[in-house]
């Protein structure tokens, strides 16, 4: 950090200073205070600052974003190639460098690299052509109202809740790492793989990656929000804007992908009774001061029901254990407990209104 007495002779000097750039692009109370002191030391600095600020402001570049599907696809491709390389049948690793490992180049060295790179591309292509062992993806899907118990190749158990999808690449025997991709909700009971260093199990859920060794936990990924509730063991969450987080039993971490929310507000951490979040496996919901509005969303996720709540009722709240064996019975109970009218319209929507 610069001392407040720093003198810049030109706006360019100021605009090229990384500390100034960060301040203009992303001010914090600390940098505000620093530069305020700098400005106050000499009235003419304001002119310098304005010109430099204009220059920095102009330097906006196009940013391209990768959506989740793309990201996953690319990573799966890379992983696939890594597996192919790691297979014991590989002869010698490709020796041709694709990257410069030395900063300065002697004359002729570039030509060597270029030729070698071409060779590398050819060899790689030929080698992959020879070793086409493409492991098939395996996807499990559940319909509305349905749950499914899945035994993974390592004997870990996944219970997939309704309206959810679990995908895995089926070559866990060659690969020390185990990973699955989840949309929806699932409970994981992961067996510890003995003896292997890299035996981490990873659940990719939205932008959040849950890394575990052996543990039980629940992951929900719906409507751009990922929730992880840990029951036993420990897990490591990656991909959060606030950095990697470790969870202990009873921790609940929620991550919202909502645009426009500051990073630190997207991640919410609390202590809960994990059993309440896993009750769906016994076909029950444990409601805890849950609003009708939230219940409507849950019914939509679980059963695909379109539930419309009359606005004055949307903030009515409910606590307790309720069976979700059948959506009709659930709605009937809801109607009795809250004293509201629930009916199905001709277009198969559920209307919840005051009686």
């Amino acid at each position, binding site marked *: 950090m610069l001392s407040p007495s720093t003198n810049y002779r*030109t706006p*360019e*000097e100021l605009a*090229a200073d*990384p500390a100034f*750039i*960060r301040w203009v*692009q992303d001010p914090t109370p600390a940098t505000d205070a620093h530069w305020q002191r700098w400005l106050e030391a000499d*009235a*003419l600095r*304001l*002119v310098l600052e*304005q*010109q430099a*600020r*204009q*220059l*920095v*402001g*102009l*330097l*906006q*570049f*196009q*940013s391209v974003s*990768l959506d989740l599907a793309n990201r996953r696809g*690319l*990573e799966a*491709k*890379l*992983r696939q*190639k*890594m597996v192919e*390389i*790691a297979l014991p049948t590989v002869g010698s*690793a490709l020796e041709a*460098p*694709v*990257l*410069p*490992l*030395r*900063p300065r180049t002697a004359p002729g060295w570039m030509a060597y690299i*270029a030729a070698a*790179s*071409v060779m590398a*591309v050819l060899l*790689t292509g030929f080698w992959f052509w020879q070793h086409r062992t493409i492991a098939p993806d395996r996807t499990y899907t559940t319909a509305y109202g349905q749950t499914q118990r899945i035994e993974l190749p390592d004997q870990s158990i996944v219970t997939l809740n309704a309206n959810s999808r679990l995908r895995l690449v089926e070559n866990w025997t060659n*690969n*020390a*790492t185990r990973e699955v991709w989840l949309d929806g909700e699932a409970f994981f009971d992961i067996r510890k793989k003995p003896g292997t*260093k*890299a035996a*981490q199990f*990873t659940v990719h859920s939205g932008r959040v*990656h849950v*890394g575990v060794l052996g543990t039980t936990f629940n992951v929900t990924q719906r409507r751009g929000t990922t929730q992880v509730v840990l029951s036993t063991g420990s897990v490591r969450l*990656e*991909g959060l804007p606030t950095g*990697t987080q470790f969870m202990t039993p009873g921790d609940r971490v929620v991550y919202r992908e909502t645009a426009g929310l500051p990073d630190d507000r997207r991640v919410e951490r609390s202590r809960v009774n994990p059993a309440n979040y896993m009750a769906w496996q016994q076909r029950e919901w444990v409601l805890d001061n849950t609003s009708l509005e939230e219940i409507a969303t849950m019914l939509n996720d679980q059963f695909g029901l379109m539930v419309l709540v009359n606005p004055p009722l949307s903030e009515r709240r409910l606590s307790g254990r309720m069976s979700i064996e059948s959506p009709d019975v659930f709605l009937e109970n809801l109607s009795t407990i809250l004293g509201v009218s629930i009916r199905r319209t001709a277009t198969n929507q559920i209307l919840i209104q005051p009686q």
Partner: protein
Amino acid sequence: MQPTKVDDTDGQNTFRDGDDEALLRLYRQHLSALYNYGYNLARDRSLVEDAIQDVFLYLYQHRDGVETAQNVRAYLMQSLRHRILHLLKSRSASQELTEANAFLVDTTQEPAWVRDEADAERSRRLKHLLNQLPKRQREALYLIYFGQLSYVEAAQIMQVDVKSVYNLVYKALTTIRQTTGVTDWLLVSAGLGLFAESFQKNFS
């Protein structure tokens, strides 16, 4: 060939031999920065995707020989740059076209200082001018201002010394400011006003 070690700055993701997950973590962590840099360099998504994969596969294949610690992000970007330039050449992409399209400032966004139509017009004019600057100047600007890299990192990526990167940035900024003409005068007069004010304060 000198061996190279890739070691993450936060110390959490150390990439060692056999630790596939660590490499993939490195991949996830830097994908966005690499993808953006690559795209701004080549304007070809599939080429960039191939090049990124090549970079990580190369690291994966040479995980046993990697030794000297460096800045990971800069190393990855340097490698990607090298790979992309090579792929562009081998696909005999038009060099002029690639150069003209690389590292363009985004003319659809408006800087925060734009207050009225006159400001907006000025911003458009200056951005247009920025996009006419030599490609190396634009690349240095991209790395420092968009990539938020240090001059040392930018120098490593561009394979020049730190002073050269600074000069590229400085030169670009000077070119832009010299054409700001009118506003310069406004600012200067504002500055004189301030000067007069401080003069009065101090001497009256």
